[in-house]
């Protein structure tokens, strides 16, 4: 399953891209999507340069923070919310 993940700030700078492509092999039926923790694990494996930011990162799915067992589908808007720094 192919997932596109938007990235921002320092992560986007290091990745030299605003969008990362991630291939996820979800456990179970692919029609049910991939779990957020599966997407994060795949990101770390396929994009090691940004792996340092993933431990404290969260994924937003369709503009809402997701939990580790939230299902991500191919057409969802997925964003990596890492190393935020407002204020």
């Amino acid at each position, binding site marked *: 399953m192919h997932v596109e993940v938007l990235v*921002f700030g320092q992560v986007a*700078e290091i990745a030299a891209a605003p969008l990362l492509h991630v291939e996820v092999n979800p456990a179970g039926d692919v029609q049910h999507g991939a779990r957020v923790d599966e997407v994060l694990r795949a990101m770390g494996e396929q994009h090691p340069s940004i792996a340092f930011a993933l431990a404290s990162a969260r994924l937003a799915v369709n*503009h809402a923070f997701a939990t580790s067992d939230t299902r991500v589908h191919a057409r969802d808007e997925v964003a990596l*919310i890492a190393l*935020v720094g*407002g204020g």
Partner: protein
Amino acid sequence: MIVFATLVEGSITRDAEACAIAPIAAHVERCTRAGTSGATVRFEGIVRDTEPRGDGVPRALKALRYSSYDPMAQQALDALALDIARAHQLNALITVHSRGEVAVGEISFVLTIAACHRAQSLRAMGEFIDRLKQDVPLWKQPVWRECE
């Protein structure tokens, strides 16, 4: 209870802030005169002239460039403001945050809180700022002076 949160382009000057909160200005004025708040606290976040680089050594800064993930940033800011205002039973929570470039010495964040009592308003202020840095998708990137 007045709860208002917004993002503006560039630094938060007096004029920019007045413009940003214009939709609720009359309401704020009425609440201020009502005498129900025993404490109003205001926090201004200002861009410092140095920032540590990767090696931890402070380097001279020209500005900070703020970016946001929209529309989630506004939604998360609204939700946080409402959550803090309810949790601390505030009379008002008004916040304005910058997007884009803010030069050294200029204001990038303003938070004003009004409550019945001082302790309540100060606790709410600390909690809002801590959670802003965790829950609102805003990023700041340094613009180094030496890159001019």
